[in-house]
């Protein structure tokens, strides 16, 4: 199988899964088995692509031109490879989890749910593989639209309100700012291809660069840079598997992925460093990191707290992009993977608690670790990874980010990263403490074990172990990302 | 002054057109609107025919010994315009008849009142 064929398969398989979900709606077992099978197949295909990229291969596919010189095109490069790998792996796990969750919860419209889910994965894969900004924009919008039915899955008043904020912010920012930035770039540069070293160098200058970067950074609403972050907590009305995969991994990561791609391939790292156009973005990101953490501390609803935590963590990635330095970029890229695995564990745990104990608030979780030991242990591992302590994956990415900030001579930013880690501990760890060391509010002090269905628990344990494993195998990820920063070979 | 001598009839024609147009937009009676429209259109005919005039010429019917004739083209165009005008009038009047059946009036304000009531009801 050539790499090009594998890329096409990576795009087609999620679509197949979506189609199957709609077609086989009358036989849920068959439908879910198919989803799972397709997911595994996708993972296989994606893994088969890794060696090519590692060896410096950059397979390309050009489909058809929409505008003159602007085709729908795909091109595999390290960042997209990493993102695709994360999405594919977690999709399989989430599908297991979703089967358990949706059934344990007797949700309606499961076929539509799985169908739209497949579509959302298709959009994420498309974004990961996009070979130019137009293609990326197409899949970015498709992702917004395909997740809207998932966010509003319950079709009640609350879902409608959440959906309004979700769609309102994501569509408005993308149309009013991102699209403007894209077309503007095209007018200036005459192309939208992702090229090493960027396409804007020498074409744009002065304040225009700053304005353009701002349009990209804020226009990518999915990156949840404050003040355009409100959609993310609003999206928490969705069923938990959606929050887990889409709003901790796929959707938000497409956002920061877009920002990273723009910084690396549209502006070019060297160009940004020379013009210092991204300095303000560092501070915007730092503000988001701190404010996100602070707001998270005030939230009692577990999923909302996690959502604000995500807002804050996305700030890390944007910060790394804004640093536009070797370590910043590598730290950012790595954080996409590390945070994804850690955060999805936390969401899985939140969903498992909801399915098994019907609890949603942090204050209700006292003593829950005694009845749900597996879930809460996994939660704790995920939390430590998100905080960034060894021996978990999150430690590496935060380390590189801090290194990047130090390299850029921004001592204050290093301080921000430290403070933020402390805040993370503050709002994530008390949940563990209360769950294990405080007796429940009601009932016996040591209730019998009552875990969520196996389909829920196994995936969350897997992802928790995954974040542990990532600490020990960060080296391949590092090697994968290294080509992103030209001239960094010797600096490692 | 020489301006005025050469152009006065255009100005009167403009006055005529505007009188017709005024009737169309000022009156609330549907039939009077149609009458106004007719005057408006009939005055445009005069505008064209005035253009076709050539001093010292006769109607474009060829006879031996004459060299100058008036321009035939404006006449041709206006023959078409007359028919178009009448056709429009006919359709407008047929509509007026139907509106009178449906509303019992051909006054715009009374029709608006009824429509407003209908809007509130449904």
């Amino acid at each position, binding site marked *: 199988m050539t790499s090009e064929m594998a890329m096409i398969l990576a795009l087609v398989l999620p679509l197949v899964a979506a189609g199957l979900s709609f077609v086989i709606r009358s036989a849920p077992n068959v439908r879910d088995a198919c989803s799972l099978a397709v997911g595994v197949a996708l993972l296989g295909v994606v893994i088969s692509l890794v060696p090519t990229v590692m060896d410096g291969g950059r397979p390309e596919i050009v489909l058809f031109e929409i505008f003159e010189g602007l085709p729908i095109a795909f091109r595999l490069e390290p960042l997209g490879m990493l993102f695709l790998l994360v999405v594919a792996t977690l999709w399989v796990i989430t599908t297991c989890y979703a089967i358990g969750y949706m059934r344990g919860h007797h949700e309606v419209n499961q076929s539509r749910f799985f169908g739209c889910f497949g579509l959302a994965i298709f959009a994420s894969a498309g974004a990961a593989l996009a070979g130019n900004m137009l293609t990326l924009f197409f899949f970015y919008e498709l992702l917004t639209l395909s997740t809207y039915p998932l966010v509003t899955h319950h079709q009640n008043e609350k879902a409608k309100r959440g959906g309004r904020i979700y769609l309102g912010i994501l569509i408005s920012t993308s149309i009013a700012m991102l699209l403007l930035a894209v077309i503007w770039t095209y007018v200036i540069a005459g192309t939208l291809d992702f090229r090493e070293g960027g396409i804007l160098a020498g074409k744009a200058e002065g304040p225009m660069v700053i304005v353009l970067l701002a349009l990209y950074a804020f226009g990518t609403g999915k990156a949840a840079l404050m003040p355009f972050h409100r959609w993310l907590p609003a999206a928490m009305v969705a069923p938990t598997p959606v929050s887990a995969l889409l709003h901790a991994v796929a959707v938000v990561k497409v956002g920061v992925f877009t920002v990273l791609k723009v910084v690396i391939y549209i502006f070019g790292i060297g160009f940004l460093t020379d013009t210092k156009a991204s300095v303000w973005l560092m501070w915007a990101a730092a503000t988001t990191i701190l404010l996100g953490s602070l707001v998270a501390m005030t939230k009692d609803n577990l999923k909302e707290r996690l959502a604000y935590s995500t807002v804050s963590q996305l700030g890390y990635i944007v910060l790394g992009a804004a640093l536009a330095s070797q370590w910043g970029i590598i730290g950012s890229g790595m954080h996409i993977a590390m945070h994804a695995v850690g955060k999805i564990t936390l969401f899985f745990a939140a969903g498992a608690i909801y399915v098994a104990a019907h609890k949603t608030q942090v204050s209700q979780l006292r003593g829950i670790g005694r009845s749900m030991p597996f879930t809460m242990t996994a939660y704790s591992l995920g939390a430590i990874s998100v905080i960034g302590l060894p021996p978990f994956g999150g430690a590496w990415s935060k380390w590189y980010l801090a290194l990047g900030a130090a390299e850029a001579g921004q001592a204050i930013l290093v301080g921000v990263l430290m403070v933020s880690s402390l805040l993370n501990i503050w709002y994530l760890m008390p949940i563990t403490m209360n769950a294990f060391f405080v007796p429940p509010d009601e009932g016996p002090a040591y209730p019998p074990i009552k875990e969520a269905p196996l389909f829920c628990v196994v995936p969350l344990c897997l992802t928790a172990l995954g974040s542990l494993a990532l600490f020990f195998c960060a080296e391949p990820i590092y090697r994968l990302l290294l080509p992103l920063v030209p001239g960094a070979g010797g600096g490692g | 002054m020489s*301006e005025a001598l050469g152009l006065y009839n255009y100005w009167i024609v403009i006055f005529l057109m505007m009188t017709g147009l005024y009737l169309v937009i000022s009156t609330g009676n549907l039939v009077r609107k149609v009458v106004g429209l007719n005057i408006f259109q*009939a005055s445009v005919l005069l505008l064209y025919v*005035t253009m076709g005039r*050539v001093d010292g010429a006769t109607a474009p019917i*060829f006879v031996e010994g004459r060299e100058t004739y008036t321009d*035939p083209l404006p006449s041709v165009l206006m023959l078409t315009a007359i028919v178009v005008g009448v056709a429009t009038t*006919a359709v407008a009047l047929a509509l007026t008849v139907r509106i009178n059946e449906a509303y019992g009036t051909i006054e715009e304000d009374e029709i608006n009142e009824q429509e407003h009531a209908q809007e509130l*009801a449904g």
Partner: protein
Amino acid sequence: MFQQTVDILVLGLLAATALAVVRMRTLIGAAMLMGIYSFLSASWMLILDAPDVAFTEAAVGAGVSTIFVLATLSITTIRAKRQTKFQFAPLAVVVLTGAVLIYGTLDMPHFGDPEAPVHRVGNRYIKRVPEEFKIPNAVTAVLGSYRGFDTFGETTVVLTAGLGVLCLLRKRREDEPKVVTE
């Protein structure tokens, strides 16, 4: 000079009739005045040496249109409501439009100017019709041949209007659903 006097006389009459139509309160009166207006304009066209249009206007404009209006009045109502208050907006619109038009006339070739550019195509007809047709009337030749397609279009307009009127006035059968008022 005589020509100019007649011109001004007829145009004055036209203006007076137009104003009378605006002021006329009874609908039948307005219809009659409309007929008179068409008739007067037909006579002015005759003065301007455009007999073909003049005859058509007298027959169709003054005759058929007036009959249509009168027929309509006979099946609807002959009374028009008195306009209660003076409206400023229509007058403003009309004065503005008229002013623009008058501004536009300032660069026009003068009335009757044989050198005016307007006669560019007209002169081609005057030259070609006697050569290419046996008909002495240039208007007929242009209408029937050079611009025959306009005439064909004109026929279609009549057909369209006829269909429209028939369609509008066709009586509904008893068993048909009545007009829906939601």
